[in-house]
C-alpha cells in the first residue's frame, strides 16, 4: 500500500503514527508547502514569549521521525490538484505523486476580511505559522517600543497578545464581539479573564471594528482611532478545502468525513482543521480546529488507510490555555442546566443536560479537569456517579467502587 499525505501538521503526524501502528512497510510520502520539519503550531506564541525555542519547537517529533517511520518528505512543495481517477497528486512544480490511499491534512488559513486601506499597512501579519511568528518577531525588534494592534480577541489573537505583551510599548486588541474569546467562554468568565489581561497592560476595544486603515492608524466604526506600528490580523481561520473539493469530495464549510475519517471519495481521507467534526457535546457538526482533535482524526485515518477498523466518534470542543499566568480549561457545550462556583481567584461552571455533563469552564484552579472532560467524552450517565462529589471537584471518589477498580486496579470487565 502506497500512502500519501498532503500537509505536515499534527493531523499528518497522527496519520503517520496511525498507519505505522498497523503497517510497518508501506511507503508514506508527505507533501507540504511549509519548508519545516513538523512543529507544534500552537507553540508559536510560546516562542515569542521565550518559553520555547525554534529548535525545541521542531522537536514536536524527533529529528529522525520521518526516517524512522519510512516517510519520504516533499517539503516546500505545493500540491495543486488531486486526480481521484488516476490516483495521483499533481504538484505545482509539475511532478506527480501516485497514491493508493491519500489523506488530506491541509489545515486552515487565516481569514482576512476585506478592510479599506489594509493594503497600505506595511507592517502586518497573521498569526498561524512559524514564519508568521518570525515575521512578527522581526517587526517588533529589540527595543520594546512598538505599538501593536491585534484584530480579533479569539484564542489566536489573545495567545499572540500573551506572546508579545512584554515586548511592546502599547498593545490594543479589538473585536466586533462584545466579549473576549466569544467562541470559548460565556460572559462572566470572559470578563474575569479580560480584567486579568488588562491588568497586564493590554487594552481591549470590544463591540467595535476597524472602518478603514491609514498606514499607521485604524479608524474605528465607533468614531475613535488607534495608532499602531504593527498590525496583527487574527479575525479567524478558514479550512483549506480546495484540493478536496477539486477531487470531488463533499465539502461544506470543511471537508466532510465519517467517523473513520474517510471522505466521500474512495481512498481519500481527511483529518484536522480542514474537516468538519461531529461535536458530541452539542450534537452538531462543526469545525473543531484544535490540536488533540487533529491528532485523533489523523490517527484514525491512518489506521483505516492501513486496513484497520478504527473510529473516532468522541470529538468535543475543548481548550486549555493560559494567559499571562491565569489558566483556563474549557470543554463541551454550555447549553443546559448550570452549576456555578466562584470566588475571587477561581471560576467553575458545570453544564448538564439529559443526565450527562455536557460542558465546563474552569478558570484559575484547573486541577484534574480531565476527569470532567472524560465524563463528557464518555457520556457517563450522572446518576451512575455521585454528582455532589463531582460538583465539589473532579475526583475519582465520585465513581462507584467497581468503576474505580477498573480505572485504578486493572480489573477489566
Amino acid at each position: 500500500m502506497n500512502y500519501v499525505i498532503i500537509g505536515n501538521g499534527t493531523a499528518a503526524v497522527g496519520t503517520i503514527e496511525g498507519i505505522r501502528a498497523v503497517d510497518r512497510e508501506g511507503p508514506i510520502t508527505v507533501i507540504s508547502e511549509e519548508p519545516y520539519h513538523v512543529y507544534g503550531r500552537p507553540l508559536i506564541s510560546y516562542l515569542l514569549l521565550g518559553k520555547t525555542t525554534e529548535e525545541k519547537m521542531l522537536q514536536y517529533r524527533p529529528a529522525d521521525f520521518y526516517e524512522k517511520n519510512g516517510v519520504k518528505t516533499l517539503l516546500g512543495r505545493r500540491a495543486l490538484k488531486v486526480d481521484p481517477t488516476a490516483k495521483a497528486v499533481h504538484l505545482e512544480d509539475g511532478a506527480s505523486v501516485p497514491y493508493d490511499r491519500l489523506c488530506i491534512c491541509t489545515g486552515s488559513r487565516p481569514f482576512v476580511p476585506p478592510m479599506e486601506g489594509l493594503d497600505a499597512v506595511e507592517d502586518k501579519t497573521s498569526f498561524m505559522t512559524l514564519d508568521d511568528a518570525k515575521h512578527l518577531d522581526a517587526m517588533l525588534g529589540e527595543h520594546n517600543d512598538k505599538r501593536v494592534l491585534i484584530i480579533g480577541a479569539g484564542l489566536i489573537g489573545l495567545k499572540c497578545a500573551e506572546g508579545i505583551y512584554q515586548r511592546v510599548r502599547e498593545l490594543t486588541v479589538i473585536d466586533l464581539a462584545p466579549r473576549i474569546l466569544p467562541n470559548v467562554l460565556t460572559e462572566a468568565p470572559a470578563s474575569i479573564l479580560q480584567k486579568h489581561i488588562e491588568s497586564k497592560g493590554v487594552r481591549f476595544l470590544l463591540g467595535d471594528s476597524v472602518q478603514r486603515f491609514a498606514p499607521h492608524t485604524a479608524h474605528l466604526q465607533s468614531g475613535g482611532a488607534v495608532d499602531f506600528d504593527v498590525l496583527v490580523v487574527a479575525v479567524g481561520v478558514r479550512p483549506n478545502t480546495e484540493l478536496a473539493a477539486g477531487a470531488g469530495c463533499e465539502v461544506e464549510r470543511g471537508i466532510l468525513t465519517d467517523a473513520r475519517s474517510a471522505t466521500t471519495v474512495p481512498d481519500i481521507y481527511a483529518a484536522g482543521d480542514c474537516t468538519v467534526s461531529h461535536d458530541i457535546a452539542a450534537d452538531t457538526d462543526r469545525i473543531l480546529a484544535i490540536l488533540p482533535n487533529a491528532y485523533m482524526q489523523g490517527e484514525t485515518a491512518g489506521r483505516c488507510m492501513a486496513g484497520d477498523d478504527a473510529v473516532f466518534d468522541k470529538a468535543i470542543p475543548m481548550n486549555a490555555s493560559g494567559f499571562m499566568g491565569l489558566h483556563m480549561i474549557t470543554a463541551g457545550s454550555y447549553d443546559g442546566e448550570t452549576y456555578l462556583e466562584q470566588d475571587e481567584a477561581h471560576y467553575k461552571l458545570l453544564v448538564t443536560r439529559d443526565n450527562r455533563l455536557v460542558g465546563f469552564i474552569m478558570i484559575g484552579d484547573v486541577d484534574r479537569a480531565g476527569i470532567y472532560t472524560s465524563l463528557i467524552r464518555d457520556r457517563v450517565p450522572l446518576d451512575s456517579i455521585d454528582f455532589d462529589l463531582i460538583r465539589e471537584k473532579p475526583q475519582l471518589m465520585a465513581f462507584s467502587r467497581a468503576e474505580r477498580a477498573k480505572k485504578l486496579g486493572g480489573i477489566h470487565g
Partner: protein
Amino acid sequence: MKRIYVNEKWCLGCHLCEYYCAFANSGKSSMVKALKDHKIAPRIRIEERDGISFAVNCRHCTDPLCVKGCISGALTIVDGAVQIDSDKCVGCYTCILSCPYGALSTSNEGAIQKCELCMKNAFGQPLCVQGCPNKAIVYEER
C-alpha cells in the same frame, strides 16, 4: 509491562506513598533533607473520604490521550511508560484537560509533572510501592 495497580481496600490513607514519591523525585540523599520544611508536590495523590481512601497516579495508558494531545511533543511513550520532557513542556495544560484520571499536575517550574515509575530518578523502581506498608499499591505485570 509492569504498572502500578491500586488495591483500594488495603489503603490505610497514611499518605506515605506521597512522601516517598516526593523524596524519590527530589534528587536529595535522604528523606529528611527532601521533606523537612518542604511543602511536598507528589506525583501520586491520595483521595479520601468517609473511611475510603486510594492512591491515584498515572496509569501509563497504552492509548494515552495526554500524549496524543500534547502540543509540544513533551509527553512521549518510552518503553511503555509515559514520560515528560520538562524542557519541551510549555505548560499549556492540554494534558490536564485530557487525562481521565487527573493524574498530571502543575509544578512550580511551569512544566507539568507526572509519575514516571521512578524510571528517571535514582531509584529505578516506584518508591511509592516500596514504601506502602499495606500493599495497597503494587507494581506488577497483569
